[in-house]
């Protein structure tokens, strides 16, 4: 148990020493991740392992202690994030040959905090790891480049704000329940809830605030698009797949059990107000994330908003307060990890070869990077939640749960978001990989082997989870049982829904799809043979495009892809601009800063202010 915490630290130190030597850094990074994964593998089922460090430091009359325990739900998250991390670190081997900067030591620290967050058994440890993750990711995002500074600052502010709110929340929780242990405080909170209603709700809300910030839920949905657009691509892959789940895990671990055990009045006989609060935020994130993703021109921003939408789905699953929805949400967390990692790896590969992240400047890369294309294709099929791949099962479970709880608005929002997902996913596919290959990309090649292998692994992973959901569902249900939920251990192939007669067998779905494919392929083979023509040979109303100055670059339809749709939504989006709101706060602080500096720059007035201070003291302390 302790090794997996020591190893990242030691590795981070070594990486920092060898930082200039790329031949050492990334293999070391890889080996360390491999070790962590193997170690985590052996920890499965050994839920009783625990390590406590006692201190003399007193807070609220009790001595603090830091406990790391192998808790099942944490293991579930930690294990899958370790798998993803390992895959990404293989990718980094090849990816970082060109880059000047080196994010590895900081990244290793983040991996340390990653494990810490998932294995923390008390809030203080959790908070410490949480903060560690916050500032390290600032450095990882900027990675020594000035162009990333503003975005990273935005992230830093949000993450520090979240941590601050969490600190107050934890303190409230500790004072209310008398314990900083996560499980104990959950039980305690349920007991004191009715007597200390306002404080308990405040504690829950403060914690949720922090979690929502980290998972980019509605009012804080802006940071992924900013950060992903500028961060180093391989690290961004980690961030978008693993780090965005940090808000999800504690909600599953703490908020859901607590709210689930409370007996709150129900609105319209369906759910209580906390459920509706969480659900509405989730629904807004899902819908808004989708709409904004549709309008992006930068591919990393597009998938950033897609992440926001996916976080919305997960939150909707939690809001249903139904065991199927809960399982679905947790399942979706891992699914999203896998598919987002796959997608961002391909994006990183594209950027590695072309150096371009604006979609309308790309196109036709399928001619040069077929395997990357295939990974991306499977990734977007998974992200769209289409059956034989992995995004489907979890989305299906969440929708089932929402329908069984009669949460109609949420179900409609979910459908809106996942249909809208086709729009932006297809846009990315068409603009990056399909269409005409511009001349300047004529001689690029497929990425090297070290980058191909991870992509192929991700492809297999997506297909595997999609066809045999038990790969994830079995550990998940085992973990949930170990935590104390009354769930059946899932079978390898099928998923159980919340409604009547709604068990689906995903393997069967895959087989049926194969059947359809065979029929279709037969029709295809029956047809006469076809001839391949170059990409320039296209129907253009009989014109020669080159005569009109139209080259392959311009012959793509990819800039204002959904212009009519955008025109429908533009008036709405212009009015509500959270981004502008945050920016104005920032500006106001800067004005205030200038004023304060001016105050201190003045030659006179020192004694005046001194006298005012004394006057205030006399007024406040003596006269009143």
């Amino acid at each position, binding site marked *: 148990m302790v090794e997996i915490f020591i190893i990242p630290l030691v590795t981070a130190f070594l990486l*920092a020493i060898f930082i200039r030597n790329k031949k050492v850094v990334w293999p070391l990074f890889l080996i360390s991740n491999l070790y962590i994964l193997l170690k985590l593998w052996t920890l499965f089922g050994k839920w009783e392992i625990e390590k406590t460090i006692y*201190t*003399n*430091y*007193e*807070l*609220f009359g009790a001595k603090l202690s830091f406990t790391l325990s192998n808790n099942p739900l944490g293991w579930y998250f930690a294990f899958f994030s370790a798998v993803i991390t390992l895959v990404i670190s293989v990718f980094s081997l090849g990816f970082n040959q060109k880059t*000047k900067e080196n994010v590895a030591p900081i990244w290793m620290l983040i991996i340390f905090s990653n494990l810490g967050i998932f294995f923390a058994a008390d809030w*203080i440890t959790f908070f*410490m*790891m949480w*903060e*560690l993750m916050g*500032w390290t990711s*600032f*450095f990882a995002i*900027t990675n*020594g*480049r*000035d162009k990333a*500074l503003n975005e*990273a*600052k935005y992230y*830093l*502010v949000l993450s*520090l*704000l979240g941590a*601050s*709110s969490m*600190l*107050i929340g934890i*303190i*409230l929780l*500790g*004072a209310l329940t008398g314990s900083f242990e996560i499980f104990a405080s959950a039980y305690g909170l349920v007991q004191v809830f009715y007597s200390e209603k306002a404080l308990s709700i405040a504690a829950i809300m403060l914690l949720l605030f922090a979690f929502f910030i980290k998972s980019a839920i509605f009012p804080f949905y802006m940071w992924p698009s900013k950060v992903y657009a500028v961060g180093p691509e391989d690290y961004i892959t980690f961030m978008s797949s693993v780090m965005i789940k940090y808000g999800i895990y504690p909600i599953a671990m703490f908020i859901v059990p607590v709210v689930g055990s409370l007996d709150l009045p129900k609105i319209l006989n369906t759910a209580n107000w906390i459920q509706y609060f969480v659900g509405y935020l989730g629904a807004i994130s899902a819908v808004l994330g989708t709409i904004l993703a549709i309008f992006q021109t930068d591919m990393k921003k597009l998938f950033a908003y897609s992440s926001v939408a996916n976080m919305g789905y997960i939150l909707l699953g939690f809001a249903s307060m139904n065991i199927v929805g809960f399982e679905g949400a947790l399942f979706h967390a891992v699914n999203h990890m896998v598919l987002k990692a796959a997608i961002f790896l391909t994006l990183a590969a594209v950027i590695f070869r072309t150096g371009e992240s604006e979609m309308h400047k790309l196109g036709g890369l399928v001619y040069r990077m077929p395997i990357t294309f295939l990974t991306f294709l499977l990734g977007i099929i998974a992200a769209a939640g289409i059956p034989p791949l992995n995004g489907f099962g979890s989305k299906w479970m969440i929708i089932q749960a929402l329908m069984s709880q009669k949460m109609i608005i949420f179900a409609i929002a979910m459908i809106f978001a996942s249909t809208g997902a086709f729009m932006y996913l297809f846009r990315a596919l068409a603009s990056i990989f399909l269409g005409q290959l511009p001349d300047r990309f004529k001689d690029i090649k497929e990425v090297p082997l070290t980058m191909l292998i991870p992509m192929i692994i991700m492809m297999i992973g997506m297909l595997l989870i999609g066809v045999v959901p038990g790969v994830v569902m079995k550990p998940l249900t085992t973990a949930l049982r170990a935590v104390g939920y009354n769930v059946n251990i899932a079978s390898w192939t099928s998923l159980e829904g919340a409604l009547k007669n709604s068990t689906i067998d995903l393997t069967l779905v895959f087989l049926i799809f194969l059947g359809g494919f065979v029929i279709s392929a037969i029709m295809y083979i029956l047809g006469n043979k076809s001839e391949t023509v170059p990409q320039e040979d296209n129907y253009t109303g009989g014109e020669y495009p080159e005569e009109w100055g139209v080259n392959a670059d311009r012959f793509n339809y990819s800039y204002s892809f959904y212009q009519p749709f955008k025109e429908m939504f533009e008036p709405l989006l212009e009015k509500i601009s959270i981004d502008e709101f945050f920016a104005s706060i920032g500006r106001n*602080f*800067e004005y*205030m*800063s200038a004023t*304060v*500096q001016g*105050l*201190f*720059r003045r*030659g006179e*007035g*020192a*004694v005046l202010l*001194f*006298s*005012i*201070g*004394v006057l*205030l*003291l*006399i007024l*406040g*302390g*003596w006269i*009143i």
Partner: protein
Amino acid sequence: MNSIVFLIVIPLIAAFLSLFLGKNDKILAYIVTLFNIIFSILILFSGKIPFNVAIGGWRAPYGINYAVTDLTIFFLVLVNVAALLALTSVREIMEYQFYSFYFVLLSSTNGIVLTGDLFNFFLFIELSTFAVAGLISYKRDRLSTGAALKYLILSSTASIFSLAAIGLIYKTLGTLNFADIANKVNNLNEASLSLILILYISSLLVELKIFPFNMWVVKAYEASKTSVNLFIHGMLGTAGIYGVLRILLMVFSKETGKLTLSGNLSSILMLFAFVTVIIGEIGALTEKNMKKILAFSSMAQLGIVLFGISLGSFDALKGVLYIVISNYLAKFVMFLTVNEFSKVSGSTNYLDMKGLGRRYPVLAISFTISALSLMGIPFFAGFWGKISIIGNAVFSGKLELIGAVLILIASVIEGVYYLRISHTFFSQGHEREGRISRVYCLLPMILALVILFIGINPDSFENIISILLDEIKSPEKYIKLILSLK
């Protein structure tokens, strides 16, 4: 243990000597400072603590006395070590004025910590004001003269107020001895006590850089040399904190171990405290000059300290001590780093220091560690202070809660500007001619490691702090010691 007076006397003698020694002043400074450190450490391990020294055989409360307790010796070591650390940043040859003022400052700060008499305390503060003003104006350029004059006028005004307070105390209680005042303070009526405290605190707050009293800070920091900044921060600031702790918590406290100021005084102080925090952090937000940034930041840190003190609970006080030590160490690291970097880059603008962190990662990492500690990030010393103060503030009342929230917001702002600077250090920069010797990287590194060590293992520091807290909790021991009561 009458030799405790050497701590004050020897620097004073050295101040005279330095007028004649010329270039050997530096050696003298090191010798005297080392003497002070060794002497105070010897006292620390002599096992005789606590003890009381009556000067000239006049027993307290009739004569002046120097008392050495756990709290005293802790701050004594801090002040003297600060002197040594600050001296290491003096590279060029200084004229005798510098060293002369330095010795006066050393002597007076030692005196502030040691003395057990209110008037004596005032005297040493006045002396240190001289010394600091002299040190600030040492450069003799436009900026430093203006800054020194500003500081001098402000502190003279403040000293007049404190003198009035001393008069009032003597008038009402008939004594100026700390222990005796503490003994008799219950005889005072609320109104007089409030007035006295108001007048006295307002002069102390000038040294503590609390908002409406701190107009001198930024200019003074900007105008003076790094070593002088460190003197102000490490010696004067630390001694000031000691004064506040001693006078507010042990001398003028009606109940033991509580900051039971009359009326709304503690609320007003708290208001001042968090206004200072906000002002300090906001002022630093868009500043480019590193020295000004550090000045604003130390203002804010002392605001947090005062906030913790005015909360009036021992848990918060523990947090205060953590903050004090974290700020003490971190500012040293930062000033030393900035000193080295500005020598290479030729400017104190942090944007000019681009890329230096890549060439001198040790310095830049040390800087980052200190910044994180100031922000109150876990794994660094400041966190233990922050969590304690915030934790106690949340439940104390509405004003305290607002203060806690404001302090958290301020720490976010602090994070923004400090990590931006760290980032600038690590970003791609251009080649420079100057070089920094590895030796100079060593000290910041060691101090940063200490911060890290305390942050990871608060136990190491917790024991010291619990001893200090024990003393603050029971001022009657102090009274007994000095008045030799049974």
